[in-house]
């Protein structure tokens, strides 16, 4: 551990060309896979939580291979806060919308009164929207957890 700390203190950018190039090539595919896991959760294992974690891991990989500033360039602190709040609000907002439209809390069939598609289709679509919210919230919270733990809170340096 001490070796690692000294190495990071000596060279915060990281100097391994192979790792940096590999990560630069890998990150788009990891993000695509995360989106696939979220969207394809209806048909295959996966869903909002797992896909959100994969998406968050791509940003964490960026921060590990380069440094914390690079990952902050791709997702700023404000955007991160906004996304985590938005994700939680999408879930609770849809649940409340169901209640406001006259159904039960979280009963997606009530959304049919907004756009008539059929109760079963709204169940499917409601699950998809909710999973999207979970994915957004989990992604941004995992990234912010890593930022805070790795930098000790000042978002300046770390790992």
């Amino acid at each position, binding site marked *: *551990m001490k070796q*690692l700390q000294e190495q990071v203190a000596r060279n915060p950018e990281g100097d391994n060309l192979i790792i940096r190039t590999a990560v630069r090539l890998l990150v788009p595919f990891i993000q695509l896979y995360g989106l696939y896991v979220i969207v394809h959760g209806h048909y295959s294992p996966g869903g909002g939580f*797992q896909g959100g*974690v*994969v998406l968050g*891991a791509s940003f964490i990989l960026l921060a590990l291979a380069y440094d914390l500033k690079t990952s902050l360039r791709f997702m700023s602190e404000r955007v991160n806060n906004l996304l985590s709040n938005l994700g939680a609000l999408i879930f609770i907002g849809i649940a409340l919308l169901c209640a406001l439209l006259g159904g039960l809390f979280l009963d997606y069939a009530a959304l049919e009164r907004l756009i008539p598609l059929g109760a079963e289709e709204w169940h499917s679509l409601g699950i998809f929207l909710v999973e999207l919210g979970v994915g957004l919230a989990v992604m941004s919270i*995992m990234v912010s957890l890593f930022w805070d*733990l790795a930098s*000790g809170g000042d978002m300046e340096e*770390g790992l």
Partner: protein
Amino acid sequence: MIWQLDQFVLLLVVVCAVAVITVRDLLSAAVIFGVYSFLMCLLWAKMGAVDVAFTEATVGAGISTVLFIAAIFRTTRRSKD
């Protein structure tokens, strides 16, 4: 899965669990904990719980190991043992 392989994975799980709490270096403990998570993921997948296996692989082995290492990175060693 063949039952011999099953027993082997279960044995490895126990070995990893004991190793996590006995090893002195915190970095090694975090890495062995990641190995433990992957073995558990293998067991879940074998039992047919693919969703749980997926969660275990991404959260247990992926994110939590990185978060452990990030937290250990901020620590210093006080005792000389």
